[in-house]
């Protein structure tokens, strides 16, 4: 239907104006504006839109597994406390921060909608906080100078880590792949950092050279379930995708130590929650630990054999690693921080979906729409990669993790994503490959995709098939998701009276997770 045929006669037709006015420029302009405004209004009223963060059902993530033993619950509580404890450089009870770091506390990055989640925002339920990275100098965690808040860290934006795809030398981007994390801040100037003199990276230069990409925190809810999905289950699921009609063909990322399928992180580069914790403790907070025992320079310092200045080493005077097993403690206090973090994450329950309906700040969603959305989600092919459920293996850790359905909405495979490419390789995942992001808990998330570029779910879906970009003489190739995105776009925007499955239903379903 051409809407102009319906709208324009009523406003601008012969009966709408005297004949002396019909041909005048002002009349045509007015009619044009009026029709445009009407179309915009109609479009705004009927177009599909992300309903927003689910708020009427309370916080539906962040609790422990439901049937934890009393002993295990003590370890969970202890791990959560440590997860939420700020670290300092020296002189406190939790030392070792820096010399380079992004933030000083696990739960500041992993906080939406509860500890263990992702980037928070002050404006959206449960109103956790402004972007904590944007407050680092204000709160005295880093000192300016030499530190400053990079332009890509915004009060209402996501927490971000920065990576440079290629090394920069003499003000020019080289052809040598970097890909590592360049921490945003240093401890220089802090009263507990001695005489450490260490400049932060030149992010303005990297931005000017277009040699910077971002990552946001991945939620860790249900981590124990993901750890305990067996190789055979993953391979069977992989096999079931043969012959799909959507052009999808994933692959696995493999752990370099034992050759098994790795599964955590945006590119499935990490094997376990413990490894994930150990790496983050060192890379994001600069705290050496039993998995990563040495202070970490930024990638260019390592690449150029510069390392860290001696004035910034062993700042708390206790030697390395800065986090280790507490031999003189008792009970849950004995494990090192990274082990405690691992326990906390492993025993976190999976987020609880709300298929019965919910409300957000702007709308109310019915169970009927959610059910239609699930059907649409499967039919258009989303579920081919976002596998709704995989069963866990028997678990020696807790019965709650043993032989249970993990409703993660992921195949844990890596897929070619075309224009989303970030030119960072991790394990066997190339620059355009990303793990299928688990969707459990997505109903209460704010920022989407690996760099947080998508502020709503509709954008996140369409960005699965971004136009293919070129680089010099080499072109990146298309996304595996393009056919599914096209199928989604062939659903009507809204259901209307016929109650057919619509794009809106799919969005409503996703916010129920």
């Amino acid at each position: 239907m051409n809407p102009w045929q319906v709208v324009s006669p009523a406003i601008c037709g012969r009966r709408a104006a005297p004949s002396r006015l019909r041909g005048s420029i002002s009349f045509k302009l007015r009619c044009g504006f009026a029709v445009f405004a009407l179309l915009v209004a109609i479009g705004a009223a009927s177009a599909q839109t992300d309903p927003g963060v689910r708020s009427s059902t309370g916080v539906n993530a962040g609790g422990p597994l439901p049937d934890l033993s009393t002993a295990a619950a003590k370890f969970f509580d202890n791990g959560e406390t440590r997860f939420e404890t700020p670290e300092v450089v020296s002189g406190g009870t939790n030392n070792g921060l820096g010399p380079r770091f992004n933030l000083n506390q696990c739960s500041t990055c992993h906080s939406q909608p509860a500890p263990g989640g992702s980037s928070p925002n002050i404006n959206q339920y449960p109103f956790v906080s402004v972007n904590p990275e944007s407050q680092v100098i204000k709160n005295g965690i880093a000192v300016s100078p030499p530190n400053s808040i990079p332009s890509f860290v915004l009060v209402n934006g996501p927490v971000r880590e920065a990576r440079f795809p290629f090394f920069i030398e003499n003000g020019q981007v080289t052809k040598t792949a970097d890909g590592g994390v360049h921490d945003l801040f240093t401890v220089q100037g802090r009263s507990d950092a001695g005489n450490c003199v260490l400049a932060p990276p030149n992010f303005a230069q990297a931005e000017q050279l277009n040699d910077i990409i971002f990552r946001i925190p991945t939620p860790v809810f249900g981590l124990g379930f993901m750890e305990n999905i067996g190789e055979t289950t993953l391979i069977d699921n992989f096999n079931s995708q043969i012959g799909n009609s959507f052009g999808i063909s994933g692959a696995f990322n493999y752990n370099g130590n034992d050759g098994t399928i790795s599964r955590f992180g945006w590119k499935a580069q990490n094997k376990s929650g413990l490894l994930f914790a150990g790496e983050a403790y060192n890379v994001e907070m600069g705290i050496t630990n039993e998995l990563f025992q040495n202070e970490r320079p930024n990638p260019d310092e390592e690449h150029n054999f510069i390392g860290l200045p001696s004035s910034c080493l062993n700042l708390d005077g206790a030697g390395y690693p800065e986090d280790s097993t507490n031999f003189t403690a008792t009970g849950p206090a004995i494990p090192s921080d990274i082990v405690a973090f691992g326990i906390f994450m492993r025993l976190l329950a999976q987020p609880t979906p709300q298929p019965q309906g919910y409300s957000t700040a702007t709308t109310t969603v019915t169970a009927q729409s959610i059910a239609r959305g699930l059907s649409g989600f499967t039919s258009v092919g989303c579920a081919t990669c976002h596998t709704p459920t995989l069963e866990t293996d028997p678990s020696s850790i807790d019965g709650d993790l043993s032989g249970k359905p993990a409703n993660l909405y992921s195949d844990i495979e890596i897929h070619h994503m075309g224009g989303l490419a970030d030119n960072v390789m991790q394990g066997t995942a190339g620059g355009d490959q990303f793990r299928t992001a688990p969707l459990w808990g997505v109903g209460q998330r704010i920022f989407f995709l690996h760099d947080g570029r998508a502020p709503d779910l509709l954008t996140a879906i369409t960005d699965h098939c971004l136009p293919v970009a070129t680089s010099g003489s080499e072109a990146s190739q298309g996304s595996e998701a393009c056919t599914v995105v096209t199928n989604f776009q062939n659903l009507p925007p809204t259901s209307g009276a016929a109650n057919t499955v619509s794009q809106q239903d799919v969005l409503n379903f996703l916010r129920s997770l």
Partner: protein
Amino acid sequence: MATSSRLLAVFIASALLPLSAQSIVSSDSRPGVPNNPTPGSIPEGALLVKGATSSASDSETALPESGSVSNNTYTNRYFGLSFPLPADWIQKSPGPPPSDSGRYGLTLLTPAPALKGLAGGSILITAQDMFFTPDPLTHASDLVDFTKSHLQGDYKIEQEPSDAHIAGQRFISFGYGSPSTGLHWRILATEIRCHTLEFVFMNRDPQTLDRLVREANAIDLDSAVSTLSGAAQDDVPVCIKAYASAGNVIERVDPLFTEHRYNPVPVRIIVGKDGRIRHIHFLNAFPDQSKAVTEALNHWKFKPYIRDGKPVEVETGIMFGSRAPRLAALSNPTSVAAPAR
């Protein structure tokens, strides 16, 4: 400003407000969330970090993934395929790189944006290298049957697999739909050079779908290429699965990988009439892996393949690196179960 103009301005502004508050924001103008620079912004000459990807030992020999759309026609020299796009259709996206399980998404076609509506639909052209599928899946009909048997509960079969003949070639036609969404799919599958080539038509409107499928009769296949197992003439070799077995290989050197990455490395080779390998196609390999495999394969020698008393070229596949998970798992076909949904 006259009263009527002020009212109009207020009206327009109020109409625009919901857009700014709720609707999709273009990827380049999201306030507060600056984007990553795109790969296209990387300085001229910088290499894309591709990881494992496809490559070949020469640029003259056609590859499955090297088809393209021009003059409203998708052409693919490897498959001898020429597919005229429906009127006013375009390529929405080229395919992703070949997978390590031998899957190609060759191209995705949709109506031009100006024509898109709810009945827009799409045509996806894919290929599956049957050298790298598990043993129970040997032919195109096996793959179609597998698709049929693994349809989820949301789908309903609308057309049982049946034979069709297009461009002198046997195709299998299969159709299904999703009653809840009103989307319908038709698959035309055929076998060329030991690949299953599939045309997947999707549309909301069954009549449009039928018309598009009928128009597929305009597919042109080069008879010198499009035989099931290769024509063994001109530059099209005969294709034989598992030809690189002990009985056929006279000299063999295994590649020495300097880094153990655990990924499968599927390789298609063409063995010349003299028994030496004249072409290597890496479907998916890291550069160091393709270098090591190339160095090894340069030392391989096969028994010449004889047909009608004359040596002919042979195309076959070899899996280096770790075994593809599918190959490993399907040694027990019953393990291929649909996952819990």
